[in-house]
């Protein structure tokens, strides 16, 4: 008999019950559409902000690094046949993440034709920050989740598969890590290594693995107790083979899905740190950083009304909340689909 025939017939993922449950959830559709919107904005960032890049003189470093002249910027950045379009879209230089400044006036300027969403104190174009901030958000979210997931899988795998004393020790460490506030940890790291977006991401990854490790360990233990693992062992498979061929692939799925839904909350947390001044520096395209002076604008406006400079902080905070909402709607639907009982 052909060994291929012995494999049990498995439905593809898009026909599975889990996916059907997910698809029927209206909240999941709303979340997916919102997220799709953010992906498009992030992808098209150079094309969307091309007029600002062309008209604001302090955007010059970005254009120089892209190798495009100012008067050609708009047509080049919006033309998919031009190689500059792809360079700007796929691998923009770091200088493009600095919000271009139109003048240095400490007072914000309301929306105008040149600046559709206004200018914040210090001359930073709000719309530019929002659009490029979408890229920063995805970057921070995926990188932090990716790193902490990798560490979590390694440590949780060791803990669950070896068991015994090692397991016990690792679990105690995880308990301590989970109960230690992330903010204090970030504060320690930034005092030692200096604050900045990289420090924040490093610190969040160093804290974030603990939850994944604990979850993965649980799934490994559950998988290890199943009969097919006993069968593999009885057939004489080595522990390494049992782990890599039988336990690991069966235990990892749920973790990967649930972890990918954490991108939203990671971005919210990171922007909170930028808000406090521990993350991205002033002028960097990061939503949290853009709101960091909101308190001053609300309490200290000349006329004494809190909404004088609303465009400076309402837009970035809306972006943050919508981004979090998109991921949470999606995550909620995914969790429901995986565990229909709750």
């Amino acid at each position, binding site marked *: 008999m052909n060994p291929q025939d012995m494999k049990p017939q498995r439905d593809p993922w898009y026909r599975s019950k889990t996916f059907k449950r997910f698809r029927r959830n209206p909240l999941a559709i709303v979340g997916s559409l919102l997220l799709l919107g953010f992906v498009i904005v992030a992808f098209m960032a150079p094309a969307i902000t091309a007029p600002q890049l062309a008209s604001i003189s302090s955007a010059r470093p970005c254009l120089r690094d892209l190798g495009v002249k100012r008067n050609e910027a708009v047509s080049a950045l919006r033309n998919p046949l031009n190689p500059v379009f792809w360079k700007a879209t796929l691998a923009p230089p770091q200088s493009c993440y600095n919000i271009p400044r139109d003048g240095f006036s400490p007072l914000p300027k309301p929306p105008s034709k040149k600046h559709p969403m206004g200018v914040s104190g210090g001359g930073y174009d709000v719309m530019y920050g929002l659009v490029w901030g979408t890229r920063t958000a995805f970057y921070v979210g995926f990188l932090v989740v990716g790193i902490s997931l990798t560490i979590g899988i390694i440590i949780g795998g060791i803990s669950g598969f070896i068991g015994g004393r090692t397991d016990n020790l690792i679990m105690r460490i995880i308990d301590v890590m989970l109960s230690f506030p992330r903010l204090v940890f970030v504060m320690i790291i930034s005092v030692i290594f200096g604050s900045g977006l990289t420090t924040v991401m490093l610190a969040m990854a160093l804290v974030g693995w603990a939850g994944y490790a604990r979850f993965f360990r649980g799934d490994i233990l559950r998988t290890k107790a199943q009969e097919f693992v006993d069968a593999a062992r009885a057939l004489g498979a080595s522990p390494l083979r049992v782990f890599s061929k039988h336990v690991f692939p069966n235990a990892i799925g749920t973790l990967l899905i649930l972890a990918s839904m954490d991108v939203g909350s990671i971005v919210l947390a990171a922007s909170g740190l930028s808000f406090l001044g521990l993350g991205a520096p002033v002028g960097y395209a990061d939503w949290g950083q853009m709101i960091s002076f909101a308190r001053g604008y609300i309490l200290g406006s000349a006329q004494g009304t809190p909404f004088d400079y609303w465009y400076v902080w309402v837009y970035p905070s809306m972006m943050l909340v919508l981004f979090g909402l998109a991921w*949470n709607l999606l995550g909620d639907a995914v969790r429901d689909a995986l565990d229909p009982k709750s």
Partner: protein
Amino acid sequence: MTTFIVRRLLQLPVVLFAISLLIFGMMQFLTPEQRAATYAKTEQQAQHLDAIIRQYNLDKGFIVQYSTWLKEVLHGNLGFSKQSHEPVLDTIRKRLPVSTELAIFMFFPTLAFGIWMGTLAAIHRDKLIDQFVRVFAIAGWSLPTFVLGIWLLAVLYGYLHCCGIGRADDRYLVEFAQGTLRRYTGMITIDGLLNGRLDVTLSGLKHLVLPVLTYTVVASAQIMRVLRSSMLDVLNSDYVRTARAKGLPERVVNLKHARRNAIIPIVTIAGLMFAFMLEGVFFIEIIFNIPGLGQWSVPAAVQLDFPAVIGIALLTGLVVSVANLIVDILYGIIDPRISFQ
């Protein structure tokens, strides 16, 4: 039970030792000169860092350094904070009651609201109230504390002139500063009562409305979710059906039979909430201008004032370990099935 508590208490020093070692280990990334700045109070002392390095063994091996540092910490010498221009311990002593008061007032409404809504959602599953709780929970998850704080600051305080920020009305703070009002605990609401001045307490409460409101919306979501799902589990169990079959009123079944048991996971969550709450307290202090630990230590971290940050880290380690201990013991009291072996 007693053996468990004793054994758990004995574990506490071990955990604290590990935390202190971890924090000290991280400090090793700094140069001896930087660490000597911890103990320099004046410009003059900062000129003679060598003397400080020698005095505190900062140029010796790890173990000697660690034991010198630990001895100083245990004697209350946490160093000198540039941010507050005074020893770290003095600042902590002044600001801890402020943060504690805020945390206490934030904790209970959040817990109560979360449990209440979670119960309602489970009892009326798939009804309107359940949908509302669901949407509220997702919205709460998606609203970071600082964003909601800023919105409420603009709308409720800035526009509607409600409630007020800071700790209390200025005239009461002046009275505290002048000594007409005595400072017993450092918590305004309690000090007001101890001074026999209800107006002071009321002013303190008024200024707590915005922080508590912000935090309750953001943080009760998790409690709602957990309570709803554990309540649904319990409502489907046999003994609840038995209770119903006996003809007990629905209310008694729901509250006495179901919720009592559904609440157990909340104890774990409430323990974890502690760590989460500290973050919330820090953000809220900064947004609503409350002179607690966060309003001092976060700018301190930005200014690289590391004695302040190390002090906060040690304090957090202590608070978190003790909180975990309390949660463990509470767990045993609430659920006798959990054995302490």
